[in-house]
């Protein structure tokens, strides 16, 4: 399982701006593989293109040039409904600001993607409960996200991302809003998802602690890959 490419980017570019105005090359000619069972960390200064690259991998943005393949499927060839359906079942996304739905309880936030994917209760509730318990939130199942600490909210967001058992997990600055201890827990969780469950995990981060867990480190600058390092530095 480990080593099989889950994501393959070939000469992917994404430009913003119309002809006649200034064109921003947010991502420019990036070629990259992210293997199953690996944790890939995108590093680089703000504005270097990390987040845009994550959006391209997750199918939230379409590339201006090049192709994005996930598990052999060319995402850039899919129309919006097909891309949305693909994302629902195969890609989990974790945001820096958590972005949990405040109107739902913690358990419902995790259960929702399962319902959207066609799993009904009681199976969806059982699966959400299992994930919430596994991520150490059993005692918080029925509370609203606003009442949780930052670390708890991010663990809930990870549980939601994992609900449909995706082969690819994307995380944007997952430790950016957390204290040191919570940040460590989240990094360990993401690493475990890659190492123990064979997912491809791609993380955009400024957090140097990530490097200790990374299987590959991609350094971005001005939208290009400025450096690619394999192996962990811990």
């Amino acid at each position, binding site marked *: 399982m480990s080593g099989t490419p889950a994501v393959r980017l070939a000469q992917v570019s994404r430009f913003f701006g119309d002809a006649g105005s200034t064109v921003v090359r947010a991502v420019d000619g990036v070629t990259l593989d992210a293997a199953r069972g690996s944790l890939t960390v995108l590093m680089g200064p703000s504005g270097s293109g990390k*987040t845009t690259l*994550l*959006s391209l991998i*997750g199918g*939230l*943005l379409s590339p201006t040039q090049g192709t994005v393949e996930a598990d052999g499927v060319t995402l850039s060839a899919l129309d919006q*409904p097909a891309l*949305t*359906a*693909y*994302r*629902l*079942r195969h*890609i989990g*996304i974790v*945001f*820096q*600001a958590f*972005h*949990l*739905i*405040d*109107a*739902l309880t913690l358990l*419902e936030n995790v*259960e*929702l*993607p399962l*319902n*959207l*994917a*066609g*799993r*009904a*209760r009681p199976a*969806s509730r059982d699966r959400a409960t299992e994930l919430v318990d596994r991520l150490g939130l059993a005692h918080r199942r029925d509370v609203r996200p606003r009442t949780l600490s930052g670390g708890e909210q991010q663990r809930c967001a990870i549980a*939601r991302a994992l609900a449909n058992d995706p082969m690819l997990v994307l995380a*944007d600055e997952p430790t950016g809003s957390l204290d040191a201890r919570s940040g460590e827990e989240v990094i360990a969780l993401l690493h475990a998802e890659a190492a123990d469950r064979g997912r491809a995990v791609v993380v955009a981060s400024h957090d140097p602690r990530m490097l200790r867990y990374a299987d590959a480190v991609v350094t971005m600058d001005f939208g290009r890959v400025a450096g690619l390092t394999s192996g962990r530095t811990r």
Partner: protein
Amino acid sequence: MSGPRSWWSPRGVPLGPRLIAFDRIRFGITIAGIGFAVVLLLFLIALYDGVRTESNGYIASRPVHAWVAQDNTTNFIKSSSFLMAAGADVLSEVDGVIEVTPLLRLITTVHFGDRHATAIILGFAPQSVAGRPEMAEGSAVPGRGEIVLDRALASQLGVRINGTLTVHGRAVRVVGLSRGTNSVMTQLAFIPLDDARELFGVPQVASFLLVRGAPEVSHDALVERLAGRVPRTSVFTREQFAANNMQELEGGFLPILATVAMLGGIVALAILTLLLYGAILEQRETYAVLKAIGAPDSVLTRLILFQSLAAVVGGMVFGVAAYALCAPLVLWAVPVMALSLSPSALAAVGVAFAIIGMVGALLPLRRVQRIHPAELFRA
């Protein structure tokens, strides 16, 4: 694996109700806004129906075959008509006629203490059922020196049965209160024909002749027989005369009410769209999250429609309840107001607001379509 399951399914997370419950103050404001529009619309429709029913009620319900009026007079509401009462004797001779009753219509001011009101006084033959109004209370057969008043007119004047009014300087005692005799602008009052002729100094004159025929004679056939028998008269079947009156109503006051009712609907649509649009902006992050985690457009569409229709249903319940509470107060404060709300009118308002709910969701739907999930990475 089956397709995306509805979020309002009892077998999944009830996202729609949860979103409403979470933002209940805004939702309450939306319901109140729609509710007030519903109340406004219900009052306008009730007034529209009330005016239609009440203004034409007496005319349409006469137990007669035909109305005879002065030539060129086509209706009761907006015309004057003077006939020689002797025409009744001529028409009585026509084959198939059972009874001819004169009706004298005059407009005057009636006084009760320091209150007064303009009324249409109808002089009729009390011994004949043809001219008797439908009663709410008391006697429909006034004797000499007595009067039957429309109940709204009585409320307006503050007079009750056995009270004494002054009509044209003469005291008359109230013996009954009628219904179906209130056209909002003016109301009917009934006195014996002889009193009317005496009071107004017009002996041997009638405004209309009501002709009752034998049951086996059709209204059309009797009208044919009556036509031309009395010079310079027009003869109408009861149905035609009632239709003429309705046409007069629909050409005057009612279009104004219909226009205001339509404006009420437009206001409701604007309120719903505005408040729903505001709710979408408030929940922008939620919709972006749903898109990011893979919710298809159909789910988002249903979510918006659910909120819109829930607001409409809530607004309808609020509006109908408020109408039920307010209508008696309005009738108490403005006795001459004619309100009539039928179940079919209520159902029509429900259907109209369901359509308004769906149309009102269009703009918010477009807004949701423009929310891009990638924006979550920036916040």
